């Protein structure tokens, strides 16, 4: 497939990342086979691990091509949900919490990002940055899909698991220099909201973040208490000198919020994590004229 100088005009970062995943399918699968997640699940043969990796790369490529990189319901994920369920179950039998599994899934991101940078030597720093961001979001969504899987696995939650999930489902992801995000999954009760707030504020300080994104795509319901927790978190982030964006308010939840009479007026909201990230990047770009060139990618 010929690369055009003006490719950026016809191609989107999503389609570029999709093509990259197809092109480098084999290398990515090979590298992933050596990551803890695949190594420990496929103990019988390495070939099995590589094959599973290929299937996963294909699924991600499909998601990228449809442009729904922040959507855990994207069709591409359906194909691998069963495989992921099996992998999660296998890790759970080893005694790993969903948080630890989630960290292992995150381990798949760096090799993919490294290959992406090597794959686009001609790309402008700007374009490379966009593609890297997109791939990072995509890998974050994969992580969400895996978390969802582990949640539905254990429908019959007992108190102890409930507590584990409370911590496990509040990973703070660094999306970019100065931008952190927490994808929330499950209902934000008082205890969890406390954990979320503390974890988020800590990482705002540690990462010197200017933007914190609270993604509630995985939150099934927003009632007055959840809303109150969200607003408190937003206010606390503001006090730390950062701006908070709430993303992923689904249509059913938006309608409910309106009927409930909640006023989220002062909270910046975006429909998807990708939109929130774009908003934050734009705001950062407006303040900081040039981001560190080249190696400004995550990690």
């Amino acid at each position, binding site marked *: 497939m010929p690369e055009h100088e003006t490719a950026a005009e016809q191609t989107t970062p999503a389609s570029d990342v999709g093509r990259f995943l197809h092109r480098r399918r084999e290398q990515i699968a090979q590298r992933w086979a050596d990551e803890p997640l695949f190594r420990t699940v496929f103990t019988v043969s390495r070939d099995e691990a590589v094959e599973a990796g290929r299937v996963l790369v294909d699924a991600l490529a499909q998601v990228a091509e449809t442009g729904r990189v922040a959507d855990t319901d994207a069709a591409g994920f359906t194909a691998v949900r069963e495989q992921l369920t099996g992998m999660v179950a296998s890790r759970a039998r080893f005694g790993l919490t969903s948080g630890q599994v989630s960290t292992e899934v995150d381990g798949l991101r760096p090799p993919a990002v490294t290959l992406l940078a090597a794959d686009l030597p001609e790309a402008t720093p700007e374009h490379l940055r966009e593609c890297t961001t997109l791939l990072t979001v995509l890998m974050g969504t994969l992580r969400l899909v895996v978390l969802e899987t582990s949640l539905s696995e254990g429908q019959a939650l007992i108190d102890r698991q409930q507590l584990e999930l409370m911590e496990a489902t509040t990973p703070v992801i660094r999306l970019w220099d100065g931008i952190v995000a927490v994808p929330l999954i499950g209902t934000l009760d008082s205890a969890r909201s406390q954990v979320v707030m503390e974890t988020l504020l800590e990482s705002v300080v540690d990462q010197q973040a200017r933007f914190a994104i609270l993604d509630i795509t995985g939150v099934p319901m927003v009632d*007055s208490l959840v809303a109150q927790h969200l607003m408190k978190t937003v206010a606390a982030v503001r006090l730390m000198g950062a701006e908070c964006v709430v993303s992923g308010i689904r249509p059913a939840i938006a309608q409910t919020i309106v*009927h*409930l009479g909640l006023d989220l007026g002062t909270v910046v909201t975006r429909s998807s994590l990708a939109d929130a990230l774009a908003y934050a990047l734009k705001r950062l770009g407006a303040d900081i004229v040039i981001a560190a060139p080249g190696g400004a990618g995550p990690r």
Partner: protein
Amino acid sequence: MSGTVAGVEARMPIRSDLDLVWVRQHVRRAAAALGFGLVDQTKLVTAASELARNTLVYGGGGEMAAEHVRDGRAQGLRLTFSDRGPGIADPERALSDGYTSGGGLGLGLGGARRLVHDFSLDSTPGVGTTVTVTSWAVRSPRQREEPR
């Protein structure tokens, strides 16, 4: 087609935060089984969450009863939250938006009333409070719309 839909009827205790999780989960599943669409499920679950928390926080605990109700071909879900707590002296004020005696947003009761089709509040100071809500599914049971 007049059989009961499995997994709808239930009596559930409301004694802890974790019970609120079960209540929400039950309402979600029962509503889905009765053919509620995603938006109507979410509305009813949210109303149930508000009312169950009031039962716990202000009523000192109590229970929720879920019933499958029918009107002709229409399928509905009725939820009754009851406690033997202090009761509500001034229901009008309690229902008004923004009124709270406990540091909340004061939106629970009024919001729940707006989120359901039928709402009734019956409270006697010193005896307890019962709130009953009913919502109706637009579709027939089991033709369940998956959130995908």
